[in-house]
């Protein structure tokens, strides 16, 4: 008797283990087509014992302890995701079930209907129940019972899922749906879905406009000081951005090497470093070159252009011609799903906030500090300021350093969304000048409005006429505007301006 019990016990313990081992063995021995069929079967008939295998497969391994890399292709990866979601519906964790149901809305296949039906009937959590209902509705559009189809069509009308639109449109193709009730319901649902999608699209366009605007603003803000206030046509401004981005890279490498635990926060540490590097280089340039060229715009232009070439080649010699890798930390990767067809990337949200923060800081510095007062005094009337005891030389240097430092901060932000390479600055210099000139030279608020205005106009035009034509049209519009109003959006008023 005890022996029989032991046998029973052992078989109970070992059977799932054995089943799992054989599943894994079977899977690894199979050819790609066979593996795909296997995964589809597993998705239709989930077995909790297979959960571990599927979780490992999703990570590209055969078991949690196996370190060998499995070679899967996209098709198999998609099927693994689907099968895993099927299995996760059996989990006790409601959040896991919800994520699984959402995955199944995208990927569930007809053979899974029976299983989903059973889970739908027994599901207790309201959110999961609703999500499962949608996943099921997608498949029920092909059901034979018109009543089931009608319910499914009505349910789909309440989502804003882009896939629902395609499915409803396919249903409404001539000759597909024969039941007139279902047809009218599908038409109403389709109109509903389209409305929701349009709303999401418009919101998305507005957000990308704001995001592009914030990037233009960060790129142009430093120039708004060096060109706008000091009047230096600084062609090396783009290279200050580039130095900021490279400073970010160096900080990232150093932290990776010496304090790997802090790697998540390296962009924050990079901010002061980038500011210091760019400001330092800027002040050095001002003292050695630009100082001698005040009031000679043509020479300044040529000299700063030469400096920009020297800086680019210096970086190329130091770091190589290839781009360097600046990785986004976890909290800047991915995005938040606001609507089914709208994802707002974290990095862009953070950059919009950061741009506004830098503007505020600059404004405070210029309007609420002694340095700011001196800068404004010197730019308005240099001789008078000097007579009153303002050390104009030092103020010039500090103001130029400030402008360059702010460009360095912009470089940190740019490194998170684009390339970091020696030519980084070249692609932003034209846009920066556009923003400052359009906004009105000498005006921070002007640059703010010009940057966001250009960003939003660009993003509204791009879907209509394409990126290439959009850019040309914007440029033409700016030229016309400047012809009409050479002082830009906001003009400085007063006697001191001549």
């Amino acid at each position, binding site marked *: 008797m005890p022996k029989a019990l032991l046998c029973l016990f052992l078989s109970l313990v070992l059977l799932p283990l054995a089943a799992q081992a054989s599943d894994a063995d079977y899977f690894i021995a199979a050819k790609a087509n066979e593996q795909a069929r296997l995964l589809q079967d597993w998705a239709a008939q989930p077995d909790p014992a297979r959960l571990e295998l599927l979780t490992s497969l999703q990570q590209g391994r055969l078991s949690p302890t196996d370190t060998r890399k499995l070679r899967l*292709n996209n*098709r198999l990866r998609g099927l693994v995701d689907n099968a895993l979601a099927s299995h996760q519906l059996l989990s006790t964790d409601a959040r896991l079930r919800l994520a699984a149901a959402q995955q199944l809305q995208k990927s569930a296949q007809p053979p899974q209907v029976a299983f989903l039906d059973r889970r739908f009937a027994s599901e207790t959590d309201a959110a999961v129940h609703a999500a499962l209902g949608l996943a099921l509705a997608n498949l029920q559009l092909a059901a034979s019972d018109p009543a089931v189809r009608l319910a499914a069509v009505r349910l789909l009308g309440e989502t804003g899922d882009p896939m629902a639109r395609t499915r409803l449109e396919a249903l409404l193709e001539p000759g597909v749906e024969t039941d007139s009730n279902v047809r009218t319901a599908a038409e109403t649902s389709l109109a509903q879905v389209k409305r929701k999608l349009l709303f999401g*699209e418009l919101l998305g366009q507005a957000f990308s406009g704001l995001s592009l605007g914030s990037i233009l603003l960060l790129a142009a803000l430093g120039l708004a000081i060096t060109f706008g206030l000091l009047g230096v046509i600084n062609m090396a401004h783009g290279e200050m951005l580039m130095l900021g981005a490279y400073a970010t890279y160096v900080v990232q490498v150093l932290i990776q090497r010496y304090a790997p635990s802090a790697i998540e926060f390296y962009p924050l540490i990079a901010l002061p470093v980038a500011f210091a590097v760019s400001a330092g280089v800027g002040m050095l340039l001002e003292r050695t070159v630009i100082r001698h060229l005040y009031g000679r715009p043509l020479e300044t232009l040529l000299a700063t252009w030469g400096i920009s070439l020297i800086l680019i080649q210096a970086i190329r010699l130091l*770091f*190589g011609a*290839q781009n360097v890798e600046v990785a986004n930390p976890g909290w800047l990767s991915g995005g938040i799903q606001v609507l089914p067809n709208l994802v707002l990337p974290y990095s862009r949200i953070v950059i919009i906030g950061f741009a506004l923060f830098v503007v505020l800081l600059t404004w405070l510095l210029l309007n609420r500090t002694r340095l700011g007062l001196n800068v404004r005094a010197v730019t308005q009337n240099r001789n008078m300021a000097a007579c009153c005891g303002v050390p104009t030389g030092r103020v010039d240097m500090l103001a130029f350093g400030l402008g360059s430092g702010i460009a360095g901060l912009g470089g940190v932000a740019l490194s998170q969304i684009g390339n970091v390479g020696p*030519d980084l600055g070249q692609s932003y210099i034209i846009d920066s000048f556009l923003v400052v000139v359009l906004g009105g030279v000498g005006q921070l608020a002007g640059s703010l409005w010009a940057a966001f205005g250009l960003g939003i106009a660009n993003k509204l035009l791009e879907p209509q006429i394409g990126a290439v034509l959009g850019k040309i049209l914007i440029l033409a519009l700016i030229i016309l505007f400047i012809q009409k109003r050479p002082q830009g959006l906001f003009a400085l008023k007063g006697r001191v301006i001549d």
Partner: protein
Amino acid sequence: MKRRSLIKAFTLSASIAAMGLSWSIQAAETIKVGILHSLSGTMAISETSLKDMALMTIEQINAKGGVNGKLLEPVVVDPASNWPLFAEKGRQLLTQDKVAVVFGCWTSVSRKSVLPVFEELNGLLFYPVQYEGEEMSPNVFYTGAAPNQQAIPAVEYLMSEDGGAAKRYFLLGTDYVYPRTTNKILRAFLHSKGVADKDIEEVYTPFGHSDYQTIVANIKKFSAGGKTAVISTVNGDSNVPFYKELANQGLKATDVPVVAFSVGEEELRGIDTKPLVGHLAAWNYFESVDNPVNSQFVADWKAYAKAKNLPGADKAVTNDPMEATYVGIHMWAQAVEKAGSTDVNKVREALAGQTFKAPSGYTLTMDKSNHHLHKPVMIGEIQDDGQFNVVWETGQPLRAQPWSPFIPGNDKRPDYAVKGN
């Protein structure tokens, strides 16, 4: 006064030293070889490594005694990503330096710019990059892929069950000749496979485009209409913001795979590849290809990068155009040995049918008439370490079709190289 005389003395001695140097080089008989790759400007990111690869290959050939008993002497010039300057530097290499052969160019415009010079002076150019075809000059040997050796097999893969059986195609490219011509060929090819125009979307961006928000949103919208694949001919740098935006907006390779024709190991060095796993690239060689020739090739390159202290040498990678450069130089050297001379007409004749055991694991043949290499095609999936996992390959080298049959009028073109074509 004293300072000035010091400077004078210094320049004098420097110039004497320089003259001495050039004498000593001329003393031994060498064969001059031109290298025409941009070392500054926008294309430096891609072309610098080709220059280094060419120098390494020449060093290796010299270590084995050179060609026909003479050492090779590289002459490196920098056309600075400036298309007219390519023609000028090309002319300088052929007329002043009197090089026997030139290895160079990356973009199609730079090749088009030097082409008249090489045809006029009867020079010899080896072009190592995949391109759009529609050209076959007697003065150029093309060691990169023609469209049928890269683009078309890639689309066939996307159509297959394993590639995801895509029904809709989003053709995304930078706005210049290579993407436009490739997409023209691909559209005709897709039509021939029964894909309707409403299932093909073609979008172009300016050079250096960095804001892909709208385009990625459009890809998402387009992909709701059925299984979609993106075919990207986006050039160089712009790929980084594009892939970052894809990852941030949550578009995964399992939903919408992107197959790229200009992204290789070198370009991925500038990207964090974890969110890109599963996206595809089509080439004729990957660094991860497992065979003895390639192991040696990769090891040689890493050692060379370290010895010469190249920037980023600890992470040095090889890629397809580098392999094509390597193969091109070796084939030229073999042809010179066979011809017994560096005379362009004799070398051209000797090159036809020349074979070489390449790092891709295949024995590549220079076609007898069309000046293009027969090359195998491989599709690789990006992995989290920046390398590619080959998921599909042709199994044997394909003959190039520089005149694509999918462009009307090409059926009347001759299948051999003619000047001014």
